[in-house]
């Protein structure tokens, strides 16, 4: 049994088919990348996985259990956490309280180790992503790169089995990208059973992390394989670069 199984997932917005009959699966401990040109339906796919949208047809199975139609917060509590492409911090709250919100959810509260306070756990989560210094700063005063990491700490606070990262490198400079790549790798090593799905535009950064890449074009899956295979795949090159002469 796969950890997450996606079968014939379809989502239409009026006449537009944003996600068209996509099937794939994710196993424990896998790092999967999802790439595709703008408007390919990657974010829609994420919204379907995290319950913010309901698919028109198809199935989503987490450990064999159907999770289609569950509200987002229930899906998080079942173990699928996500970040957003555009950062969504709680601006009035200090950085540490942003993480404490996630720790207040049933799953987050359950995952706090014995004899550990919520504050302590939140501080540990922030230390993992390197935000300890900004702990007490209101989130509205924090820069974009740090907010990206805060997003990640928020998602990790519930200790998900599957982590969905929606463009984690978007808007980051090379230095920050490098730092984030490293922290994603470290997170993966710390928790080897956690599966991570990354949607990304920056292929260079992505290809270094993931072992398997799924390419989406106009809502449909066009290729799947290791980064090397994808880099050589003619259909993918055609989609990204146009047809050769």
């Amino acid at each position, binding site marked *: 049994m796969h950890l997450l199984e996606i079968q014939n997932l379809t989502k239409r917005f009026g006449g537009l088919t944003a996600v068209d009959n996509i099937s794939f699966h994710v196993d424990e401990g896998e790092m999967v990348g999802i790439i595709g040109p703008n408007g390919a339906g990657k974010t829609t796919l994420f919204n379907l996985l*995290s319950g*913010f949208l309901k698919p028109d047809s198809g199935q989503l199975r987490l450990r064999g259990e159907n999770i289609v139609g569950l*509200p*987002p*917060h229930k899906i*998080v*509590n079942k173990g699928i*956490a*996500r970040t*957003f492409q555009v950062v*969504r*911090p*709680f*601006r*009035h*709250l*200090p950085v*540490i*309280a*942003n993480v*404490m*919100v*996630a720790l*207040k*959810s*049933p*799953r*987050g509260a359950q995952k706090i180790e014995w004899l550990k306070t*919520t*504050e*302590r756990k939140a*501080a540990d989560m922030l230390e993992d992503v390197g935000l300890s210094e900004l*702990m*007490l700063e209101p989130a509205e005063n924090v820069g974009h790169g740090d907010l990206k990491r805060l997003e990640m700490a*928020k*998602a990790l*606070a*519930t200790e998900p089995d599957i982590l969905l990262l929606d463009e984690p490198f978007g808007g980051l400079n090379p230095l920050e990208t490098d730092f984030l790549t490293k922290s994603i790798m470290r997170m993966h090593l710390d928790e080897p059973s956690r599966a991570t799905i990354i949607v990304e535009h920056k292929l260079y950064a992505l290809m270094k992390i993931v072992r398997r890449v799924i390419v989406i074009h106009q809502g449909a899956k066009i290729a799947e394989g290791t980064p090397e295979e994808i880099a050589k795949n003619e259909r993918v090159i055609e989609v990204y670069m146009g047809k050769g002469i």
Partner: protein
Amino acid sequence: MVLTYFRRAYSSFAAHVFDIPPRLMVLLFLMILAVLPVTGLSSYYLRILISANILAIFAASWDLLVGRTGQISLGHSLFFGIGGYTTALLFKYFGLPIWITIPIAMLVGALISLLIGFPCLRVKGPYLALVTMAFPLILYNLVRWSPLIPIFGGEFGIRDLPAFFPELVVREQRIAIYYLTLLLLFASSVIIYKIANSKTGIVFVSILDDEVASKACGINVTRYKLTSLVISGLFASLAGCLQVHVLGVSNPPMFLLTMSFIPVILTFLGGIGTIYGPIVGAYIYLVLDKYVLTDLLQNSLESFGVVLPSEFDYAKLLIFALIVLILVIKWPRGIARFTTDKLENLEEARDLDERGPRIWKRYKKKEKN
């Protein structure tokens, strides 16, 4: 030995009260309010202060729902009126004493807020404000409806309700009521403030900031919104109960739209989302309205021989609106928050580290150890 104990108690008290500007302000405020009746204030002003206490409870409950959770309610008079009518009806039909009817009325208020919460909280923002506005209007017409006059008393409401402390004489009774309402205000505002600054309160603020993101954090948003609404309804109906027993009558105007707007005005005067702001706002509002405009202005003009026509009452409202407008434009973040910001700046100069709400401070202390 004993002296050391007291010194330690004092320093702990100082650390918990003097170092936190909002609390220092509350302490000063309470001290002033506690000695006011002893200074020989006339019964008329005591009565104004009593209603300030009651309105402060009402506004603080509104602030928890709107300032902290972001669920805009323009129909808070619903809970106010329901509290009042429930305690009145319980007295009328069962003859229960005040001390029993008030808790029951508070629970009824909480129950009603739960009931209206389920349909209401599905809509967001301005739509929510409009939907909540409808409920008190329905009840306003219901209690005036002619077939129900035997029950609700129609336009005149339910009269001759028992007052607090009936065994005392007029002035003493009023002082006693003043202290009672002050005590209840203190208790309920401390409870509301504690809730607002607890971990649940953090979740409330997260809903205010970004509902989608709090869903993505695994928060059952509907449940927390309902919690906030129920707590708010509980205290708003307490305010309604107090009002009814102080005035001795429970009448339809309790459901009026103007009653719903009072917490809005008070909260914006004091500072939205602070909890202590609306309480400060309540005193500013009533002192402005009843003392400055009515007594100071009118009496001083009359002493110069200017006799104001009876239309002045309407002009008063206009002047009052103008003053509120100026205050809100001058201090958009609220007068109370402006003051605490000033105090915090002073403190920042003293010690940069020891700022912020207690919850972070406590954490910091642990870090140091």
